[in-house]
C-alpha cells in the first residue's frame, strides 16, 4: 500500500500542564493528538509513580502528535518552549501513514 512519510512527536509531560499543551496544539497546524496515561518514570527530576495520588500533581501523561514534515519546526518550537519550563521530554521520529491528507 502506498505510504506517506510524516513525523511523530512524543511529549512526556507533567499532567497539570496537559491542558496548556492541548490548548497550544489547538492553535497550531496539527490535525490532532493522542494522550496516553503514564504510570511512572524517572528523569532528572527523580523517580515518580502515579499510584496513590489523588491529584494530578506528580502524574505524567504522554502526548503523541503526527504532523507533516514541513510543519515540524512550526509545531516543535512552541511545544518545546512550553515543555522546557516543566518536567518533561520531547522526542521526534519517522512514521508513515496511509491517508496523507488526514495529517
Amino acid at each position, binding site marked *: 500500500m502506498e505510504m506517506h512519510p510524516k513525523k511523530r512527536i512524543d511529549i512526556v509531560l507533567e499532567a*497539570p*500542564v496537559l*491542558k496548556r499543551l492541548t490548548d497550544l496544539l489547538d492553535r497550531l497546524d496539527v490535525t490532532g493528538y493522542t494522550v496516553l496515561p503514564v504510570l511512572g518514570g524517572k528523569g532528572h*527530576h527523580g*523517580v515518580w509513580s502515579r*499510584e*496513590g495520588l*489523588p*491529584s494530578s500533581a506528580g502524574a505524567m501523561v504522554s502526548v503523541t502528535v503526527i504532523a507533516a514534515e514541513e510543519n515540524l519546526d512550526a509545531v516543535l518550537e512552541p511545544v518545546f518552549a512550553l515543555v522546557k519550563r516543566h518536567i518533561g521530554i520531547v522526542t521526534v521520529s519517522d512514521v508513515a501513514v496511509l491517508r496523507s491528507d488526514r495529517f
Partner: protein
Amino acid sequence: MSILDLAFQNIVSPMVLFFALGVAAALIRSDLSVPEAAAKLLALYLMLAIGFKGGAEVAKSGVDAAMALTIGAGILLSFSIPVIGYALLRLTTRLSGVDAAAVAGHYGSISIVTFVAATEALKSLGLAYEGYLIAVAAVMETPAIIAALLLARRGAPAEAGGESTSALLREVATNGSVVVLVGSFLIGWATGAEGMAMIAPFIVDPFRGILCLFLLDMGLVAGRGLRQGGRSLSPALIGFGIYFPLLSAALTGLMALGLGLSVGGTALLITLAASASYIAVPAAMRLALPEANPAIYLTLSLGVTFPFNLTLGIPLYAALAQRIAG
C-alpha cells in the same frame, strides 16, 4: 478528657494507625499500592461528604454575622500565612525565592483530610462546631496560591510567571476539589435535613472507615515521598514543617478571640490555618511556579506537617481552642 488523653487516644485511633501502616509499608518497600483511580474516587467521596455535611449543618443552624466574619478571617489567614512563611523560610533556610514561595503557599492553603481528622477528634470529645467551617475551608484553599505567585514574582520578576496570571486564576478557581467542596456544601444547604436523611447511609455511616482507607493511601504516598525526597529536606526545613503550623495556630488563636466561635469551631479554624495543602496547591504550583522543586514542597507538606498535625497537632489545637473559647 485531658489533652494528653486526647493526644494518646488520637494517636491510637484506627485513622492514624492506618496512616502509619501506609508509611511503614512504603519504608519497607512493599509493593502495596492504591491505584490512582481508586485514590481519586476516595478523595472525591471525602470532599463530597464533608461538603454536604457542612451545608446541612448550616441549613439547620442558619446564617449569622459570625459566619461572614469567619469566612473573612479565613481569607485573610490564607493570604497572610504565606507571607510570614516566606519570610521565615528565606531567613532560616537556603531555599530559592521560588521554592520558598511555593512552600509558603502550601501552608496558607489547607488540608481537607487534616480538617476531617480534626472533626473526628472533636466528636470523641463531644464538641460541636459551626457547619460553615466547611465553607471557610473552601475559601481558604486558593488565596494562598495567589499569595505564593506574588511572592515569587517579587523575588524573581523575570523568571516566574510565563502564562498569563488570569489564566492561572481561572484554573485555580475552577479546581475540582474546590468545586466539589463548594458544590456539595450548597447542595447540603439547599436540601438540609431531608437531603441528609436520604444520603446519610452513604456519607455519614461508612465515613470513618473510608477515611482509614484514604489515610492508608496517604501514608503510602508520604512514605514514598520521604524515601525518595527525604534528602531534599534540610533540618531547618523539617523544623519549619513543625514549628510553622504551631505559629499559624497561635496567630489564628489570637484572631479567633474576636470571632465568637464555639470551642469546636475555634479548634477547626486553628486546624485549617495550621494544616498545609497537598492536593490542590501542588497541582497549581506546577502551573504557576514550575521552577519550584516538587520534591521539597510535597515531601514537607505530606511527609512532615501532615503526620505531625494528625498525631500531635490536632490535640494541641483542641487544647488551645479550649483555652480561647472554652
